[in-house]
């Protein structure tokens, strides 16, 4: 997977988390994932379609998710609160939205789909042409994991390249 596709998502996550959690974040471990995705806790997934297609998962261990959602809510939330899931969804949305803006400036066109909850313990295995990169962001409230699996849509990209279209 090309780093030029990934970097906007890392930058966006760093910016969104730093601003929202009002503290510095640090990019920790990066690793390639070839096996099926294993959820760590509360995970929101946003799919992209267009010139680049794939999905981004934002995943927080349950206690971290509670701390992060409570921080945004300004009050202590119980682990069962629906607002925890909503918070992770919105964070995923903001990260993807901001990254897509940056990629759009480079000429890529997308459609961002609404976030969905990753409910199963194990997700789909990445395919041969789509590798997934896992990035860990270390924040003052705990680790936030972002799993990015994207690929160029060759058909759409060649369509754009045809002169006069």
């Amino acid at each position, binding site marked *: 997977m090309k780093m030029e596709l990934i970097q906007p998502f890392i930058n966006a996550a760093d910016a969104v988390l730093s601003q929202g959690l009002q503290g510095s974040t640090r990019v920790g471990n990066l690793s390639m994932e070839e096996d099926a995705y294993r959820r760590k806790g509360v995970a929101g997934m946003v799919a992209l379609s267009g010139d680049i297609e794939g999905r981004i998962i934002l995943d927080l261990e349950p206690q971290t998710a509670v701390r992060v959602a409570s921080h945004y*809510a*300004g009050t202590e939330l119980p682990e069962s609160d629906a607002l925890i899931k909503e918070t992770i969804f919105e964070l995923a949305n903001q990260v993807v939205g901001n990254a*897509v803006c940056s990629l759009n400036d480079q000429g890529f066109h997308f459609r961002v789909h609404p976030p969905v909850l990753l409910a199963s313990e194990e997700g789909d295995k990445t395919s041969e042409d789509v590798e997934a990169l896992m990035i860990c962001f270390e924040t003052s409230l705990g680790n936030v994991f972002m799993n990015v699996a994207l690929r160029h849509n060759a058909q759409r990209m060649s369509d754009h390249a045809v002169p006069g279209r």
Partner: protein
Amino acid sequence: MEQFAPVKRSKDGQPVRYLIVDDSVFARKNLARMIESFGGQVAAEAGDGLTAISEFDRTHPDIVLMDITMPQMEGIEAAEKIVQAHPDARVVMVSSVGYQENIVAALQRGARHFVQKPVKPEVLYEVIKYVLGEDGAVATAAGAGV
């Protein structure tokens, strides 16, 4: 959350009334807290574009804060329908998908402004003052301007 000098309606000194449209409960709560810190009042909330149109007709808010990516009807289409029916409606798009195509499309279809998520309260506050123009007044400590 930081407190701002309250922005009131010029005509009657009442709080500015807002319709918040976003499919995320989290985002709606976040915006509601900002609005309260601006001295405003949430007239209604909606989770999709269709509901936004009916809530606008029901509550006639001073400002609509509208997300773009939503189920049933997206925000730009809802903004267009609201402005077609109510040319004086003030719709501010609030979205994380803030690239130029979206901004231009929203402005062409009647939105007055665009705020990128994550929303910074100080940015939204300035946008609201700008969009209200002479119909809004910032209250001073002594109550002048209300």
